[in-house]
């Protein structure tokens, strides 16, 4: 039982939580060192490597949890299998085994080790979580409004608006290698803004704006969809995210600004871009005490 999961190797219960960004980065490095050493040999365990900076950290956390699970789960499973197979009563053996009921040192051991494992997982979690929820000053801002059953993307300070319903799968255009702030809200019921390859989802809720930041590392077109049940056409509430170079992004924004007269236009990437607000209500955010 001495082998702890890698993410908690370097950890003791007294370890203070990271106070500064630098410290937390160092701690993360230490925590994930076994992963780094293993390099590409650590499998993905079915997860996405992640397109954004934080998606990548999340992916490493996911790998760490899997390694911990394999170690802890493997040991438990081995002990379990031994107990099940080694102590099978032989046919006709009516004898009564020793009536052992307590073994305090053993019980203490299997209480303390899980606590250490859990503390390790918690520290790794907090480090990554602080990165994911960090809110740096953005280079671009996109307001996202979810509605039954589609998405509207507006770009504050510009005239670009993208709206699409169900399988029309509207495209949210965003620049690569820049901090992009998303302000997410719903105009009716709760929706789930879920981009699998960003390793991220967040509820779009009525009356409450959720703000978070993406920093994409790779360009590309990524599929996404509503994850939270929102009524009849929930399963068709698609959208896509097009991560483009900053210059392409600027060109796209200026082209939208220029063509104010056209009600609709076809964007370079094929999305139908509707310049004017087609009448989808936006409920203003108001403080409701729940942050």
């Amino acid at each position: 039982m001495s082998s702890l999961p890698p993410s908690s190797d370097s950890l003791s219960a007294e370890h203070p939580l990271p106070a500064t960004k630098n410290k937390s980065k160092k701690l993360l490095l230490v925590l994930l060192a076994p992963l780094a050493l293993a390099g590409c040999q650590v499998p993905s365990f079915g997860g996405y490597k992640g397109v954004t900076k934080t998606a990548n950290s999340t992916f490493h956390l996911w790998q760490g949890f899997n390694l911990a699970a394999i170690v802890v789960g493997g040991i438990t499973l081995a002990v379990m299998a031994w107990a099940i197979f080694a102590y099978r009563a032989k046919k006709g053996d009516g004898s009564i085994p020793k009536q052992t009921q307590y073994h305090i040192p053993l019980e203490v051991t299997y209480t303390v080790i899980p606590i250490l494992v859990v503390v390790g997982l918690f520290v790794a979690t907090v480090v990554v979580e602080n990165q994911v929820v960090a809110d740096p000053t953005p280079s671009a801002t996109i307001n996202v409004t979810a509605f039954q059953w589609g998405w509207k993307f507006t770009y504050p300070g510009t005239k670009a608006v993208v709206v699409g319903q169900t399988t029309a799968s509207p495209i949210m255009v965003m620049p690569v290698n820049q901090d992009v702030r998303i302000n997410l809200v719903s105009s009716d019921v709760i929706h789930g803004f879920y981009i699998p390859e960003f390793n991220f989802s967040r509820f779009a809720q009525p009356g409450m704006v959720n703000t978070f930041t993406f920093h994409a590392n790779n360009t590309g077109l990524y599929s996404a969809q509503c994850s939270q049940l929102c009524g009849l056409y929930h399963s068709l509430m698609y959208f896509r995210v097009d991560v483009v170079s900053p210059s392409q992004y600027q060109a796209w924004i200026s082209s939208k600004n220029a063509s104010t007269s056209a009600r609709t236009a076809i964007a370079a990437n094929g999305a139908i871009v509707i310049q004017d607000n087609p009448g989808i209500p936006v409920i203003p955010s108001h403080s409701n005490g729940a942050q």
Partner: protein
Amino acid sequence: MTDVIDRPVNLDSDDQGPVNPDHGHDHGHDHHGPSGLVKWMTSTDHKVIGISYTVTSLTMMIIGGAFAEIIRAQLVSPTSTLVSFAQYNELFTMHGSVMIYLFVGPFAFAGLANYLVPLQIGAPDMAFPRLNLLSYWLYLCGSLVMLSGFLTSGGAANFGWVGYAPLSNVTASPGSGADLWIVALMLTGFSAIFSGVNLVATIFYLRAPGMTLFRMPIFTWNMLITGILILLAFPILTGGLVMLYCDRHFGTHIFTVSGGGVPLLWQHIFWFWGHPEVYILALPMFGMVTEVFAVFSKKPIFGYRGMVFATISIGALSLGVWAHHMFTTGAVLLPFFSAMSLLIAVPTGIKMFNWIGTMWGGKVTYSTSMLMAMGFLFTFLVGGITGIYLASPPIDFFTHDTYFVVAHFHSVVMALVLGAMSAIFLWFPKMSGIMLNERLGKFQFWFLFIGTQVFTFPMYLVGLKGMPRRMAVYPNNPSWQSLNQWASVGALLIGISMVFFIVNALYSFKKRVPAGDNPWDAQTLEWYTSSPPPAHNFVSLPPIHSERPTWDYNHPDHLSLGHGNKEKAKAGS
């Protein structure tokens, strides 16, 4: 071994007929009371009510399972049109609702608990027998009210078993099926509260002389903690449902933004009930399998006291983890709820190792009941570990509302189903006086166990690929099809296992292999009395010096060993 016990022999087979699984009534032993249907409707005997609860809840399992089979059939193809979108939403809502509210809960905390708790502590009945009967009728009526939603023009409730506001408001879900769902949950909610009151009162006030708290069987201990959790959690849900109903029909704006309400409040209320509820479902099954491991290893429960403390800490922690269902709302304190949720893995792990420790060094018999318990152990290990992943907010961010979560809680709940089956195979002889067929039982086990894994593992994988839950179709992602088909095969295997179960019950009632008082050489007090027990449970009681008085009575030379394997001092013996 029990023939030395002094009690009148009561073997008049006309009067002692076993339970009828179709109607759930027990002819029992009361020579002077009513019988048949009238008895079933009026009896306040905890055994009759317990069997009514068990049979009704298992019927609900079959109904909810049938919904699941339709859901899995729909998902075999990305563009299936087996059911419409609207029907699909109704089906998964009612599948979840029936399984959680009408099957697992009532089975766990009112079915076997009603039957067993008084027997395990040497009591003649529950503390409030009439309240107990009212509780059953509220449950039965609530169940019928919920299912009657299918008969309304708008169909049954269709907003998921969690009923998130504002989707559950009157604008988004105008149908009366939604109202029937709300009213049904109020009825079954009160039923649960009354069961909780009864459990706590019975366990505190009706224990037999000598049955101190630390001599109670683990199942009874778990029911005590479950009862307390019910009293803390269910009133919150019932209150929330009243608010929801008022929002829908009386013009309040508690969960409506336009009137200054906060939709998020519903999630807080719901999950403040909903997470303790998970343990309200799980603790009884934990208790059941604990007894099974001890009986079929011929050993005392390993680390009995540690087990009790683990149960208490699970109960306490379960009240502080509700917002881990709400990480993606962006409105909860992530580190706190993450820490609490991770921490709850520790007492759960202790239980896991105690179960293994109980088998360790024992004489393990592979009866159907024990196989089911072993299946529980493995499946619960998988569900428990994936639960730890979900306690980490960054991981939850990309798995929330995907099939990964669906797979996680189906691992957990299918483990509970295996635990429930394990318990049925253990206690059926006590309840009916006859044995279930072992061969059919083992067929059922293999189908159920393998089916569960074939069903859940593809769902984990398709969830990681990004398939959200509650999808009627997935036309843009044909690559998810094969995993979904595997999950459907697993669901089919589980369905077949239930056919074996029903056939087994019918076959066993036809064969009528008598069980005797204690067919398993079991340890707790209920195995001291006859099978089924007389109207007032006990004619005499053995001395109670430990949590397994029947074992101590039958095997006076094999008492539990204390720490260091020294024989425990037996106070008063």
